[in-house]
């Protein structure tokens, strides 16, 4: 009756029951917290706005995100995952959610933040519907507990609108070495060339052909820069479609 086996069994059962009960209580205690987070997002700049070679619209934004999520933290909170998504409707899709920026907040001290950033993930539409498109910016958060149930909620901020026309990057407003079609290159010269070529002749073929004819990368770069200047002098409101055949 009082053998070692029985005592070990009873002890383990008791320990696990208590542990499970504590986990459940910790998780339930989260329900008593009624958070009131605040957030504000500004679109500071449209860095560039273009139609990709495959026909989908892509835009690059500079954002200013400020939020106070301190009230989300309780004693059972391990971290808060926060992300900003652009949400809009198109004729084809009833809902498009594109995550633009995200971050992990490890503690309450870091939960009040202010960040100035370009979009971390590419803002690409499925199709060509972004010109003049109204969209919402929604700040979502996911509370990851130390144990138990996960919570999620959001703040919807509406009233954002994309421009009616495509636009080029003014080379300076772009983060250096980040190509407009994605990807990064370490070499400045290579960047200049690829950036301009990709911007103006989506078929990278032309760049390859120039290289194949024996032109140096730097020369093609200068050529492309010249074209860029000419286009910019003509008109700032020139759309990508109109400018494309220039080259």
């Amino acid at each position, binding site marked *: 009756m009082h053998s070692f086996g029985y005592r070990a069994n009873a002890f383990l059962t008791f320990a696990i029951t208590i542990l499970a009960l504590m986990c459940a209580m910790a998780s339930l205690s989260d329900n008593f917290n009624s958070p009131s987070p605040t957030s504000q997002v500004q679109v500071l700049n449209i860095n560039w706005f273009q139609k990709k070679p495959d026909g989908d619209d892509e835009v690059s934004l500079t954002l200013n995100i400020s939020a106070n999520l301190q009230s989300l933290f309780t004693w059972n909170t391990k971290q808060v995952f926060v*992300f900003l998504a652009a949400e809009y409707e198109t004729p084809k899709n009833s*809902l498009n959610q594109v995550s633009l920026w995200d971050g992990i907040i490890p503690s309450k001290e870091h939960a009040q933040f202010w960040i100035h950033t370009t979009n971390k993930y590419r803002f690409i539409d499925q199709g060509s519907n972004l010109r003049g498109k109204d969209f919402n910016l929604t700040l979502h958060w996911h509370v990851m507990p130390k144990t138990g149930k996960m919570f999620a909620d959001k703040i919807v901020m509406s009233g954002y609108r994309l421009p009616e026309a495509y636009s080029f990057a003014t080379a300076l407003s772009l983060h250096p070495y980040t190509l407009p079609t994605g990807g990064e290159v370490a070499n400045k010269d290579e960047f200049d060339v690829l950036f301009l070529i990709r911007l103006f002749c989506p078929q990278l073929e032309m760049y390859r052909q120039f290289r194949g004819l024996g032109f140096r990368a730097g020369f093609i770069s200068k050529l492309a820069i010249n074209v860029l200047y000419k286009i910019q002098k003509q008109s700032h409101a020139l759309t990508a479609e109109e400018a494309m055949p220039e080259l």
Partner: protein
Amino acid sequence: MGWIREQIDSIKSLNFRQLVTQAVSLGMIVTSALIIWKGLMCITGSESPVVVVLSGSMEPGFKRGDILFLHMSKDPIRAGEIVVFNVDGREIPIVHRVIKVHERQDTGEVDVLTKGDNNFGDDRLLYAHGQLWLQRHHIMGRAVGFLPYVGWVTIIMTEKPIIKYILIGALGLLVITSKE
């Protein structure tokens, strides 16, 4: 040593009637475990209601060895949710977060893109060759609950099968020899 001798004695003193009772009680334990598992499958609507995190791609949120409880409802999939999905040609399901959603107007079908919180880029490299989006049928469930460390039991047992056999053997012996 007294405990072991006691156990051996109890095996020796087994008679037929007792043997049947023990077999039945062992069967009860196995079937009740199965019932709980299948019941969970019914309630959660997911073919595997509990998964163990195997990789560090969701750190620091989920570490290797943590357990996730899944739920698969009719609700549409939205950005930010942590989903478990299967990719054609891959056996092990992946637990990652949804970062992009495109839902069709007419059919309600969804195109979903995922990413691990701790990964640099999105998951297109993990998908089948040429696959750009996940569809509804790839997704096994979404994570709703979280329990740390418990999954280490299964990780250790799959990586060191000898421990699994010792444990099963010991439990079986305990059930057979226990007197009520």
